[in-house]
Structure formats: C-alpha cells, structure tokens
C-alpha cells in the first residue's frame, strides 16, 4: 500500500516536472472543442505532426529534440491567458495562438516577457512594423494584404474597373472581423466601389437576417471574414439564396474543406484566398510513414492534405526554419527565446528550400527584416469543386496593393507606439 502511494507520487512528480530543460519547446495553444473546433483541430494536428516528424526523422532541430505541450483555449481569451501563463515557465520559443483575440491579449505580455509570437495571417496587422512590435511577427501575409488581394482578384475578373459596384463584407463581429474594414474603406475610395459592412455575432450560428439583407441589396461581390461554425452557416445561407458562388470570396480562414462540405453541391464555385497551396506534397508521405503509422499522430491522422492541416504544418515549418536559423546565428543548438527572435527576424524562405523540405511552392518566397515582419503579402485564390470534393488553385500568387497598405500600417503602428509608450527602433 505504502509503496504504491510512493510510486504514484513519484510518477506524478515526473509528469509535473515537464520537459527536460534541454528540449526546444513550441507550445501549441489549440482549440479542439467549441464552435471553432472544426477549424482548430486540423491546424493543431498539422502543427504538432510536423514537429513529431522532425523528432522522428532528424532527431529534432540541430540535434535537440522538440517538445510541443498542448493547451486547450477553446478560442476563449481568458483560457488563452491561462494557457500562456501555464506554459510560460517551460522556456517556450514561440507562441502561435491562432486567435486574433488572444493575440491582442498576448502582444503586451510577450513584449514584456521577451518571448516571440508568430501570428501567421492573423492578429494585429500593424505588427508588420518590427520597429514598434519587435516580438511579434505576422509573415507571410496579413489581413490588410488579404483584403487587398481579394479586391485585386475582383479587379482582374471585372477587367480592371469596379467603380459603381457594391461589395459586401460579412464579418465576425470581433477584432478579427473588423481588421480589414479600414483597408477596404481606403480601397473603396481608390477604386470607387461601395462597401457594405454586415457583422455576424459570435459564434455565428444564426445568420438569416444578414443573408436576407444580402438577398435584398444584391451586392456584386461578397467578401467574408469568418471562422469556425460561422463559415459553414454563411456558405449554406449563400447557397440558399442562390447567390452566385464565384462572386463570394472568403479570407484564408474561411476556405477549408470543413467549411464547404456541409453545404454539399450548393458550395460549388465558392472561392477563398489561401497562403499555402493545397497539393499532395512529398512531405505528407513522410508524415504518414514516420508519424501516423507509428501511432504518433496528434489527431486521428485523417486530416492530412486538407487546407488547414497544411497551414498548421506550414506554420510549424516556418517556426522550425527560424529555430534552425537562430541556432546558426547563436552558434549553439540550445537557443533561448531571445535568440529565436533573432532567428525569426533573419528568416529567409526560398523556393529551393521549400523543395528540399518536401513542400515545393507551398507558400511565397520571402525574407523577414526588422522593418518588415510581415513578409511579402501574397496569396493564391482557390475555388471549391463540389463534385471532385477538392480545392483547385485558380490563380498564381496575387500581390497586395502596398501603396494603400503601407501608410495604414505606419499610422496604426504609430498609434500603438504612442498608446503603449514605445519608441520604435531597429538595431
């Protein structure tokens, strides 16, 4: 009896002690429950599986093994803070909260604690200004790029002239959904279209009135900034009112298989932006062989090849590349969070490197610098084919209109700097 208690106590202390100090720690603040789980699960699986692959295939990064402690946030800011505090003591290298709300929460905290945060294609757009936000990165593209890329795609379709047209923005009524409004307003003045803003409240299960308004106003195009269950409902409602699907364009967070499949054939032709190309990359075979078949997969292993699994893996790949860069710069495999930050700021992703990693052309080529934490701001447009049940990439990489975005970034970053009392500086 006594031995058993002792053994149990010993077991729980070893488990509580957590990863060995020498490991590189990449916490995964994921959400596998709640209204956003449909999108949170594949991303979290991809993120974790790639690190497992590196452990299995290469023995970690630079010979140091990797740890991915997972913490469930449920897309909720209070739980996100709890997760951040719970994992902060493990010497984490980089946080990727996959939630704009939690990102806003964590920007001041990571800046104070000196831990880098990578918000890939979400979060605060002006974090692109590395002088003001030294610890926050949002490469390879941000929401304002997304808004501009969507408008550029519409321009292409309409032969370069969209004056007098109406574009409606259906958005998640939160910091996330409100991000593109500023840019779209600027673009509306530049190109002469009318912008209608249609908010959808969390979680977005009920959108009858919004789509009734769209049915009445008949806008020429609908853009969507949605996430979780809101995507599925919106696409279903659009199909119900017979809105022309190829005039309905979602941001990269509104374009996964889980969003379109529930609407069945009605979703055919729906378009979404994407920063990571969908294809059967060679790296997926390695993941199947070395991770899934060995029973080490984070999830059920059924998400491989999907849009968000690919994006989670892409995020993990960028983090791993930055860590390798940091090891090279620091000259030691055991890097700290501060050295990781330097690695991220010196990150360069080339086409050759992507081929080497078994994911050719998965995203744009870009390099990061202190002045630009946001990458190149390019994305693909993909279209859903309901019969083949797959996304087809229909354009090349489309660039955003930096002429409009850059002044906005400068303005917003300056506002943050004065609010938070920061003097922007690049060393």
């Amino acid at each position: 009896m006594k031995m058993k208690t002792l053994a149990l106590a010993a077991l729980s202390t070893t488990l509580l002690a957590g990863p060995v100090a020498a490991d590189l720690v990449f916490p995964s603040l994921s959400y596998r429950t709640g209204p956003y789980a449909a999108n949170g699960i594949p991303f979290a699986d991809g993120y974790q599986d790639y690190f497992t692959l590196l452990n299995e295939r290469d023995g970690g990064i630079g010979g140091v093994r990797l740890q991915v402690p997972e913490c469930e946030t449920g897309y909720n800011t209070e739980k996100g803070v709890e997760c951040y505090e719970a994992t902060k003591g493990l010497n984490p290298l980089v946080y990727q909260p996959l939630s704009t709300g939690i990102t806003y929460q964590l920007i001041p905290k990571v800046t104070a604690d000196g831990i880098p945060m990578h918000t890939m294609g979400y979060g605060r757009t002006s974090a692109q200004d590395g002088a003001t936000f030294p610890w926050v990165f949002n490469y390879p593209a941000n929401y304002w790029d997304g808004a501009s890329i969507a408008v550029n795609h519409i321009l292409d379709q309409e032969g370069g002239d969209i004056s007098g047209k109406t574009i409606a923005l259906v958005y998640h009524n939160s910091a996330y959904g409100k991000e593109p409004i500023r840019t779209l307003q600027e673009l509306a003045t530049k190109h002469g279209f009318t912008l209608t803003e249609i908010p959808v409240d969390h979680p977005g299960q009920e959108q009858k009135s919004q789509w009734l308004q769209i049915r009445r106003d008949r806008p020429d195009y609908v853009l969507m900034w949605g996430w979780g269950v809101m995507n599925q409902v919106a696409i279903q409602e659009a199909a119900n009112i017979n809105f022309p699907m190829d005039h309905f364009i979602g941001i990269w967070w509104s374009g996964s298989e889980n969003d379109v499949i529930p609407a069945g054939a009605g979703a055919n032709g729906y378009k979404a932006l994407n920063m990571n190309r969908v294809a059967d990359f060679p790296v997926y075979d390695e993941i199947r062989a070395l991770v899934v078949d060995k029973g080490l997969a984070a999830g059920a292993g059924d998400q491989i090849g999907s849009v968000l699994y690919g994006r989670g893996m892409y995020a993990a790949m960028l983090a791993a590349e930055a860590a390798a860069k940091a090891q090279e710069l620091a000259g030691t495999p055991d890097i700290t969070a501060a050295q990781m930050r330097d690695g991220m700021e010196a990150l360069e992703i080339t086409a050759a490197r992507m081929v080497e990693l078994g994911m050719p052309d998965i995203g744009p080529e870009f390099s990061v610098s202190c002045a630009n934490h946001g990458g190149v701001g390019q994305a693909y447009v993909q279209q859903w084919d309901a019969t083949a049940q797959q996304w087809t990439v229909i354009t090349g990489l489309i660039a955003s209109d930096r002429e409009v975005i850059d002044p906005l970034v400068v303005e917003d970053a300056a506002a943050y700097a004065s609010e938070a009392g920061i003097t922007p500086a690049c060393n």
Partner: protein
Amino acid sequence: MLYREAGDFKTTYQADNQTFPIRFDRWRYYAVLVVAYAVIPFVIGDYWANAILVPFLIYSIAAIGLNILVGYCGQVSLGTGGFMAVGAYAVYKLMTAFPEVSIVIHVLLAGGVTAAVGVLFGLPSLRIKGFYLAVATLAAQFFLVWLFNKVPWFYNYSASGQINAPERSVMGVLVTGPNTAPWAQYMICLVFVTFCAVLARNLTRGSVGRKWMAIRDMDIAAEIIGVNPLTAKLSAFAVSSFFIGISGALFFAVYLGAVEVGEAFGISKSFLVLFMIIIGGLGSIFGSFAGAAFLVLLPVALKVLGVDVLGWPTDIVAHVQLVIVGALIIIFLIAEPHGLAQLWRVAKEKLRLWPFPY
C-alpha cells in the same frame, strides 16, 4: 468546544451586534485577512495570480454585486455581463481621457457610471417581476454589448474595436499593463474585494438591507409596513451595479488588459455569475465567495489533474471538465438547494454543539 457563544460576554449593544459574534469566527476572519494581505503577496507567482487568484477575486466582487440584487432584493437579473462591460469601457475612457488621475478613483468612478446605467435599466422592475424582469434585463445585456460594438467613440476609434489598458500605477507601483508584478495585480484586487465585501456586509445588515429583504420576501407586505418599493428596488440596482461595475473595470484593466466586448462580456458571463451565486448561496456574502471559488478554481483544477497529472489529450479533458462541472452543479443543487453557504451554516450549527450534540 472552541466554537461557541458561552463565555464570550458582551457588555455593550455594539459588541452584541457585531458581524461575527462568536470569538472563533472573529479569529478566523482575522486569520484569513492576515494570510491574504501578509502571506500570499510574498509567495504569489505569475500563474497563481493570472490564472487563479485575480479572476477569483474579481468574480467575487461581481457575485457580491449580483447577490445584492438577486439574493437580497429578489430582482432576477441577466444583465451582469452588460454591466461589467459598462464598468470596463467606463474605466477605459476615464484612463485614456485623464491619465494623471489615480486608477483607484477611475475604478470607483466606473462603478458609479455603472450604478447610473443600472438604475436606468432597473426602472422596469417597478412594474414587472420575476421571469419577465429577467427578460427585461436580458435586453440590457444585448443592448449594451451592441452599443459598445457599434459606437467607435467607446473604443477610441481603434481599428479592431479592442480596448487596451495603458500602464497605470498606485503609489509608484504598476497595477495595470503587461509589466505589472503579480503581487501588485493581486493586491489591488484584494483591496477592492475587502472594501466591497465589508460595504456589502454592512449594507445588508442595516436598514437598507432589511428593506431589500422585505421586498424580496413579499413586496405588498413590504409596502404596507412602509417600505418604499421605488427607492428600495432602485437602490438595490444601484448598489449591485456599482459592485459589478468595479468588477468589470478590474476585469479589463488588471486581469485581461485587452478586451473585446462580445467575447468577454457576452451572455455567458451573465450566466456564469448567476450560477456562482446560485451554487454559492443566494442572500449570503460568504456564498458569493464560495460560488466564485467553485466556478473559477474547479475547471483549472480539473485541467491540471487531467492534462498535467494524468496526461490525457486536451480535448478529452475539456469535454470531461464540462461533464464533471455540470454534474457537480446538479448534485449540489439536489443535495443542498440553498448552496454552499447553507452547508457552511449547517456545519457551524453542528460545531456549536460538538462534541455533545443532543
């Protein structure tokens, strides 16, 4: 043996009417205060402050506020989230508009603003009662959240609609913003909790509280014995909203630091605080603390047990947690419908007779 009135002689009316008439209770109360003020601040770390104690203290204030309205005055309210949002946005506007004024004054003023808004939404309570009043306060919840989302003035025209707490200090020590030490966060919340709890305890023991309870027990009888329902109900709304406003202000400024109204102050927050006082005990200050502790600590404890100790997958733990918390709520309410405070009361009755019960 230890817990008894016998031998504790009172020679003045004042001593006879004190909050804790039993000596052991008084000692316990002082012991809790000593631990809270003189021990915890020296040992508290980031995790304990940010994930456990600060939310517990802040929710305690909200629960005390709602308990005054629902537990003492009998007016059901589902507008707590909305009123917390008023406190948060009021303190944000005050902090950014008058940076030179102390944050303590801003938090109290935010409570005052919320009290005014609470009185406004309390007006229908003079005509409608029970479930119908609950629906009317539900309107307040949705209206206030909509308002803070819709009108950019409230969030100083920021592009994302988020509000961020700037750094403010009390007596040279930072209490808001990311560079705040965990003990400072804890202390400012503790001071407000103590202030609110003492105030609420004394209000409910005095003539104001007796009027509220008269209204709660039977409003017609209360009117006949001379209680003015207008002042009694509206004062309950005002005092309750004042506390809830303070908790909302601290929730934003000290705890989260950045807030998005729909997510942080949605309808689920109203329900959470209502569950706290139902589980803790309606009409009891101790119950407000017990309920807040139950609903703040239990999920964290279950998470630590499931993920860190047992090593289960995070999604399973999150689901099991919902099941266990739900089941415990049902079990508690069947076993003791008057909440944790009643369990405590029964325990004290038994203690008085221990070890020779009759």
